[in-house]
């Protein structure tokens, strides 16, 4: 069975400090990977999309960047956090089959920027 793990679970960071969030998928080769952001009580906003190692497509510009260094790993980062970066970050994967891009989400990383 496939498992998806995100780290850290939660962070409190200062404005202007760097950030790195990670995501690892086990049990699935060559998944499509995604980063989503959710403001408190808000809708799901797709941030990045990756179909393979080294290829990342940005969907929304939020002064964030993403990388896919390995087939099973997806990293979200920024060098300088803004207050507006606070929220719930979700990594998700989908398979390249006939499932219609069914997304499976990780547990999420909750970020508070102060």
């Amino acid at each position, binding site marked *: 069975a496939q498992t998806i793990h995100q780290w850290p679970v939660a962070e409190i960071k200062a404005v202007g400090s760097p950030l790195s969030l990670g995501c690892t998928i086990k049990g699935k080769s060559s998944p499509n990977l995604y980063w989503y952001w959710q403001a408190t009580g808000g809708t*799901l906003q797709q941030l990045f999309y990756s179909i393979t190692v080294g290829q990342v497509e940005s969907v929304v510009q939020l002064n964030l960047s993403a990388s896919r260094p390995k087939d099973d790993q997806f990293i979200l980062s920024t060098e300088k956090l803004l207050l507006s970066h606070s929220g719930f970050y979700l990594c998700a994967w989908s398979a390249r089959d006939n499932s219609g891009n069914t997304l499976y989400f990780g547990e999420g990383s909750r970020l508070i920027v102060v």
Partner: protein
Amino acid sequence: GDSVTQTEGLVTLTEGLPVMLNCTYQTIYSNPFLFWYVQHLNESPRLLLKSFTDNKRTEHQGFHATLHKSSSSFHLQKSSAQLSDSALYYCALSPYQGGRALIFGTGTTVSVSP
């Protein structure tokens, strides 16, 4: 462009009463995939059910939905609400197989009281 509309932001009801959440979509593609995700408080979204077959009822965990391409709808229903159904529900669209991600609606919060 492709879009999903959920008209209710908040639905409040009493335990035991029926639930119906509205979802309509827009796409130029003739074979979309439609999804319902549920997100409980402090958790990540979880797939509830999905469909791509016109006029076929899909059921899971007491919930059901039918994709109607003629009206571009995929409403979620349950005959008797439970306290544990209190959550945020998202309708989502994949316009075609192999797309870049799901397009989410703004979500409907369901609050069930005794």
